[in-house]
């Protein structure tokens, strides 16, 4: 099936099978920040933005992205660069495998709620799992980024 979408600002036309998942399609297109984690809609590692909303690409058919806009971390480097250093400074990314999902969902959080409380950060990022850090590092990093903007 032929699909047409906007991927990281570029128009893309491609032929896909009916059951190709968006994750595999995006990786084929070179978006290697999109990783396969649990593969069962639970860990948040494969998060991408579709029409600005965070979704799980492991459980989205590529054909459903037809006529939509998809953004991955490759297309959002500048927006991410504002805060990822703060997360790294807190030692939050130990193995780093979960980072792309966390960063994508943090972008979605800050677009929706530019000044979240700690509880709002925890609630928004509850769908991103990290097996190393216990989540405090990510929270501290985002908090210090937000505090730096107020300084």
């Amino acid at each position: 099936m032929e699909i047409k979408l906007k991927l990281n600002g570029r128009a893309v036309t491609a032929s896909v099978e009916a059951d190709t998942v968006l994750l595999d399609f995006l990786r084929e297109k070179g978006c290697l920040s999109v990783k396969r984690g649990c593969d069962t809609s639970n860990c948040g590692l494969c998060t991408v933005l579709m029409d600005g909303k965070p979704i799980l690409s492991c459980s989205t058919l590529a054909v459903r992205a037809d006529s939509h806009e998809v953004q991955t971390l490759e297309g959002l480097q500048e927006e991410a660069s504002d805060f990822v250093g703060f997360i790294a400074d807190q030692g939050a990314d130990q193995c780093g495998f979960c980072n792309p999902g966390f960063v994508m969902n943090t972008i979605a959080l800050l677009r929706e709620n530019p000044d979240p409380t700690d509880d709002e950060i925890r609630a928004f990022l509850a769908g991103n799992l990290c097996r190393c850090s216990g989540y405090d590092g990510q929270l501290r990093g985002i908090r210090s980024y937000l505090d730096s903007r107020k300084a």
Partner: protein
Amino acid sequence: MITIQNYVRAQSLEEAWQLNQNKRNRILGGMLWLRLGSGAVGTAIDLCDLGLDAIEETDEQFSIGAMVTLRDLELHAGLNTYTHHAVADAVKDIVGVQFRNMATVGGSIWGRFGFSDVLTVFLALDTYVQLYQGGIVPLREFIEMKKDRDLLVRLIVKKSPCRITYTSMRNQRTDFPVLACAVSCIGNEYRASIGARPSQATLTCTDNPGSPAEFAAFVAEHTPTGGNLRGSAAYRTHLIRVLTERCMTELGGM
């Protein structure tokens, strides 16, 4: 994993219904069982072009399209004002924001899943299901109906004078609930909807609830429970008493 041969974006409910009469075909919801499910689907039928992704509010009711996401429910100001935030409370711990941006009301209700927070909260409201062939059916009747090849078009929530509160017990915040509980008062009728028993939610109603503790005991007595890896039947029955009494007290019970 589920495999799919063909994909069709239906351009009308009739087209979707016709395609769905073939048992090899299947309606797509949020697709969140795509990897955990199994089997071969002939044609996946997508309703995403049918304008069923909106919540319409009038003076009398909310009309919630089948493709409305759980995140839409969570953020809808009118629905959450009417339900005193019970709908948002019911969905807020379902996995994560990304998951809730995908999971649809239609998929949740049609599946009649035992673990469903969504079914539990809507069962406590004055809710109806609009089926393409079957017409408008009260939700409490719909959950007793045998699954067929009809289409769930939308959910209708009547704005009856209502107070409602929702809570659940989870072993871990974003896990399935061990027990889900919604208590409402619609007119003079007190309703307790108990989900994740672990079977599908059931409704217990009375006009004379007594004290919160008496109502909780009444609900526990009339709600069958079972055991699974999240909790035993006895534990769930205990939880029904605790959560129902808590909800009833919050509701300002008799």
